[in-house]
């Protein structure tokens, strides 16, 4: 569910992703070869389903608030009090294109070339989206930290 939550725009969409993902898991269970971890296999299916659903809705790789890309570097203290749920919420607030590239690269560990193929975009686009996603996320954390202080 956490995987779906990371990719979805809202809880409803996450539920749809999870439902579709599990149906596929049941459907293709016989194709699992017990060569890797079952959890990893399931995670991969969930990610593929999430991408498919997002692709249907057309991911927007648009530029928002270019100033955010030049946001100041954050101090380590800003992260210390950040909980898991807060972080998830901040990631969910990212625009869908930023969020997808960020998840695929940072969490799942795909390279920019692989992401380019998966999302049908240039690898350079993936790189720039990641940089902007990272900066935007840092800015959001910074903002949250200031409010907390």
């Amino acid at each position, binding site marked *: 569910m956490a995987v779906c939550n990371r990719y979805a725009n809202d809880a409803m969409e996450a*539920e749809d992703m999870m*439902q579709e993902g599990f149906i596929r898991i049941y459907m293709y269970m016989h194709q699992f070869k017990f060569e890797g971890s079952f959890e990893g296999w399931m995670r991969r299916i969930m990610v593929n389903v999430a991408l498919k659903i997002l692709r249907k809705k057309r991911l927007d790789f648009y530029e928002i608030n270019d100033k955010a890309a030049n946001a100041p570097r954050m101090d380590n203290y800003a992260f210390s009090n950040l909980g898991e749920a807060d972080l998830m919420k901040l990631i969910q607030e990212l625009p869908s294109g930023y969020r997808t590239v960020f998840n695929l690269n940072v969490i799942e560990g795909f390279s920019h070339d692989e992401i380019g193929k998966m999302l049908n975009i240039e690898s350079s686009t993936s790189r720039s989206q990641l940089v902007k996603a990272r900066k935007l996320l840092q800015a959001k954390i910074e903002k949250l930290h200031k409010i907390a202080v």
Partner: protein
Amino acid sequence: MDSKEFDKYIKSKIQNSESVVPDGMFERIMAEQNRRRPVAFIPKYLMVGLLAVIAAGAGYFTYKKLNTNNNSLESIAENKAIEKIVTENNTSSQTDNTNQTTENSNNSPVNETSEHFNDNNLKNNNTQTEQSSIENNTVNNSDDKNKTTKKNSNKTDEYIVGSGPENDYDFGFDVVRTNESTNAGSVSDKNFKPKYAAVKQARNSKSVSGEMLKANNKLKSSTPASLAVAASGGSIDCPPAGQKPRNDFYVEGYLSPDFSFKKYNNQALPQHFGMLKDSTESQMLGFTAGLRVSKSISEHWLIKAGLQYSQINERFKFRSEGETRITTVITIRQVVRLPGDTVYVSDTSTVRQTGYRVMQGTNTYKNFDLPVLFSYEFGHKESGLKYAVTAGPIFNLTTKSSGNIVTKDYRAEAFDNKHNKVYKNNWGMSFYTGISIIKNVSPKLDVFAEPYYRFRLSNMANYSAGFKQKFNTAGISFGLRYNLNKVNE
């Protein structure tokens, strides 16, 4: 903190995070999985069944055709044997000069054709006629080559009209015979016997197809265009000799119980809405009734058109949770303070009950359609049984829908064609395919049963509904058809 550290930090925090799975999620997944399975399998089985029936029909028809072909081949061989004997007798009575003339005239392609049609004529008549016809032909050939050619050419036209459909299969073999008979007519008995034996052997070993092919090719180059079609494998759809072409004009009435399968596709609504909708709606038996006229356009083909009414029924059952019912309770008490001093005290209170409410009803979808179908009929005339494969488009003229539907915020809402327009007024085109068994009960009256499948091509829901839906229908029609233009045989 640089980018890498930041990424590492986020990954460590997020990668193994867990979220709470909503209640009933796995029940919904299982329900969705079960819902998808029958939808995927029913059309497959139907398609396989339909294909099997069509294949069986085609196989039967081919088998019947082959049988007819074999019978005609055997009869030709018998006729040929008789004919040869007669030709030999005639040839022996002619002079050498006559033989030469015959041989020359037989080289003419027109003459070959004419002989071929003479043979058709012979086959249709009795043996006696055959003998005399061939005798005349041979004599004519010996008398005057040009004259004979002209005369035979005229005969060709005559016999085209008279030849029946059973002769379609005879072309190939006839020409083999023609070639032999030309040789046999001019050469001695020695040449004829081995060739006839070879043909007989070919017939016995059922390997006449090669010979037929060669002969057909030869025919193509030497016959008129209409016959070339027949020689190349196409058939000339002629009525049997002595009969008028089929000109049937039927009026058909039919009634069919049917069952519709819903196909739902979510567009803009949350995916669980589909399950919600599916859980509130269940299909019921519907029916179709109609009148159509059918006109024969050839010996086997008919075109059908008419009007039909079909009704799809659906049960709607909705359980609405969290319903409250407020009941007002008035209690009247009588207080007797002293004799003659009675006071009535009235207390009004309300009882609030929270529970669920079940709504039940039937959704109906009434279709008025225009079918335009093509039918191919075949079968035994003797047994009075016929079979037909029918297919074609059905155009929806108008549809009236009414009933209740669940909304995405979990409420039941009424719909019809005027107010809450969930479904379209016109459902577009659908494709119909069916297989009929027709039994002749009187010279002009037939009864038939027709299992069918109707595949709707268009979405029936309005764009604003946020989903796509269509019904595919399977049923079996029972009907009567009356021939208004029966040609007596």
